[in-house]
């Protein structure tokens, strides 16, 4: 077992974990943060995407011990002061989700994409979300949601 200390959604946490424990398992099983979900075994689907020090990572691809000393933001910590993030609002406004299983990862990836490039083209959004699979929406309204959020202009720095 290895001792780790990190910040998750603004709260300081310390734990003893097995070295093989994945960050996504740590979030779900140890912290009960079940907003982050597991969709595949191979890092292809992106459902487990969270932010590590403000950049999106697939949390099935990071060991919990690698997050030691770092800051993690999950979908549950994205809204601040009870106010939804603009990207969350846009997904609802543009019907960017159906079953919602890919949605937390999709939103976290979109926030990072817009932080990096606040005014992306449709093609840039499509390429930026290529690592996140969705089976319900045909991506049409997801792409629309991200472009809508960009048009609202308040994404960069909202949560990093």
């Amino acid at each position, binding site marked *: 077992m290895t001792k780790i200390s990190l910040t998750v959604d603004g709260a300081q946490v310390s734990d003893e974990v097995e070295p093989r424990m994945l960050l996504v398992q740590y979030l779900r099983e140890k912290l009960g943060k079940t907003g982050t979900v597991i969709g595949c075994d191979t890092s292809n689907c992106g459902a487990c995407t969270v932010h590590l020090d403000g950049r999106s990572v697939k949390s099935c691809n990071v060991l919990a011990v690698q997050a030691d000393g770092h800051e993690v933001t999950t979908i549950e910590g994205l809204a601040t002061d009870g106010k939804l993030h603009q990207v969350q609002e846009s997904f609802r406004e543009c019907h960017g989700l159906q079953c919602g299983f890919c949605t937390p990862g999709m939103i976290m990836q979109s926030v990072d994409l817009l932080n990096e490039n606040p005014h992306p083209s449709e093609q840039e959004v499509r390429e930026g979300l290529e690592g996140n699979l969705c089976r319900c929406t045909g991506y049409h*309204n997801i792409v629309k949601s991200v472009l809508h959020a960009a048009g609202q202009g308040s994404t960069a720095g909202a949560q990093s």
Partner: protein
Amino acid sequence: MTATAEAPAAEIGQERRRKEDQRLITGRTRWTDNLTLPGMLHLAMVRSPFAHATIVSVDTSAAKAAPNVIGVFSGKDVAEDQGILINAWAITTDQVTPTHTPVAVDRVTFAGEIVAVVVARSAAEARDAAELVDVEYDELPAALDLKESAEDKVLAHPDLGTNKSAFWKFDSAEAGTGGNVDEAIEKARGDGIVIEREYRQQRLIPAFMEPRSVVVDPTGEQLTVWSATQIPHILRFALAATTGISESKIRVIAPDVGGGFGGKLQTTPEEWIAVALARRVGKPVKYTETRSESLMAAHHGRDQWQKLTLSAEKDGTVTGFKVELLADLGSHVSLVGGGVPVLGAFMFNSIYKFPAYQFSVQTVLTNKTWTDAYRGAGRPEATYAIERIMDELAVEVGVDPLEIRAKNWIKHEEFPFTTVAGLEYDTGNYEAATARAKEMFGYDELRAEQKQRREAGDRVQLGIGISTFTEMCGLAPSRVLGSLNYGAGGWEHASVRMLATGKVEVVTGASAHGQGHETAFSQIVADRLGVAFEDVEILHGDTQIAHKGLDTYGSRSLVVGGEAIVKAADKVIEKAKPIAAHLLEASVDDIEFSGGRFSVRGTDQGLAMADIALATFTSHNFPEGVEPSIDSDATYDPVNFNYPHGTHLCAMEVDTETGRVTMRKYVCCDDIGNIINPMIVGGQVHGGLVQGIAQALFEEAVYDDAGTLVSGSFVDYLLPTSADTISFEIDHTTSPSTTNTLGTKGVGEAGTIASTPAVVNAVVDAVRHFGVNDIQMPCTPERVWKAINTSSATGGTTEGAAMPHFDESEPGQSSTEGAGA
């Protein structure tokens, strides 16, 4: 025309934002795998690496000694209480149905079949211990190729002596719905056109995003089962029927369910195992599959060979259509898998007036994962066949493919129309939908560009693909299901409960897995009862709350479940009228209900629905004989299917040097009758389109020669990504259905049904001048390149051996009479 007598309502037709989304966008969703119960144990499955093998021995000793392992169970260990999985749809009375135990006992019949189960304190410990289970196998030859299996070259179940499960046939001459197809074909061989083709429907994997998960708690008064399922009610029935536990002692909860597409329309071995082992160990247990387990062992879809013969007069008027199918059931006949091809049988004639039609299917057992419903279930296969071959007819006649369709389709003024397959189509307007799609597409301009590129010999060629379609949805009138030997009805149940505060609780048996039922159903109730959208709460997915129902599949939620809600709401109004009359001191006959208000005819006196609800709660001054309740139930059995239709047009660019295909443009105009929420409908269409496009271009479950699933992860099973797709242009025409009071038609499967042939027609169209008339799906760059470079010799790229022929003399042949609606 409209189907409803009332004026357009306030909520129906509005783009209401979804009620479901708040929890989904904030990570507060209730997935089954999120659940943790006190003392809960975890299961891991040991799965066969072989497609077909005798189990010589299962040594569980090392696994049992592993840390925190509670127990390890082989098939023999749980033989007494593991039960048998049920098949709900024997399409013939003598269908050959192998016994299906959740854990294999003596023999494994596909790679991925469960041979042992580990129970441990954590999921990781269970998986570690599963690695220590030592199974000795004696490998057997496996039945893998569908055509060869159909000829019993290798037996999937040697004890059965055959792979042929059932033979089912519909003939329009015998049914009295049309002429004799063989005569039509014979005549056309003399003085008309006969086109023969063989198409492959490759094996697909539903690949819902949420892996299947089940939690069973045996510790209370009831057995509580949480499952990521589309069918909580059917699951409860199946568990009760096979375990002997009373239905009232089983509670099935489908919490938030992350996609299904038919893939969660199943009673699974994993659910049975979780129930059996939870009862054995007396503690709650959880099993959540990995993605590779999901791809390997959750059911697959499609997998057919289609042999088609179309006859026509020289001008392109179709005279007959003969369809012979081979359908791969996999190793067992799953819940409704045997019936999927039969569901498609009625749709091969699609929107056309065929004078003669014959359909037959031979279902075949192989040593692969079993197949069952996948988005569209039977209807995509049918639409693909007819829309591909209509293009071939257009080429033969030398006319535009749209012209050949218009020549043969049912005209708007001919509705209602009884088809050669015996179905009565209620409404439709193929002319209007096609005209609109053509206009959106810029058809003539793109045809001109195609001609120009072809003449210039461009490296990148342009193809235009057309797909017109209709489908039968809203499954289904119970009497039709009965005539097809289906083991359940097609009704749906709803309750509408008026709360004392004037808010409304609605219970539906149709639970959702992402479609937005809570929103659409709230809109219907708000209009019907004249209450606020926000004041309606939709309850579903828990058999203790929604005690009756037949669940969600076949685009039935709105048109069957929604109609049940309408009927329950109407009963609420009728029950409220005498109470309103009493409170308003008027005669019941003088009470009118409109806009949420009961009023005395000809006066300004009235009471809102909320007033009646409160008065019913208090019931202080009700006279004797007035029941202090306006809550109502309704069970609705549809009188007919409904028949959405549409025209889809697609432009594909094909790089003739690399075979790479790129989508340039996709437009569609669908007619799904009246629309409750255009935003939700748009989402259903977009998602459906991509699933159909994925069949055309990307997805295929591939097995190697040993029967191992090669496409066993998302690295190998290619789901399309955002970068592989484009934004779509969609629109609607409206011919309201006359088979439900809302005038709606189903939409969940339409996009998938229509888009596959549209895309393949476009790809073939782009390279037809190289002599190509077919490319097998998925149209990968390799297949397209080969088609371009080899087609002049073969005329096409149909792969595999010749299709075997079957008739009534084969085993499992006792045909059931086909029945239309």
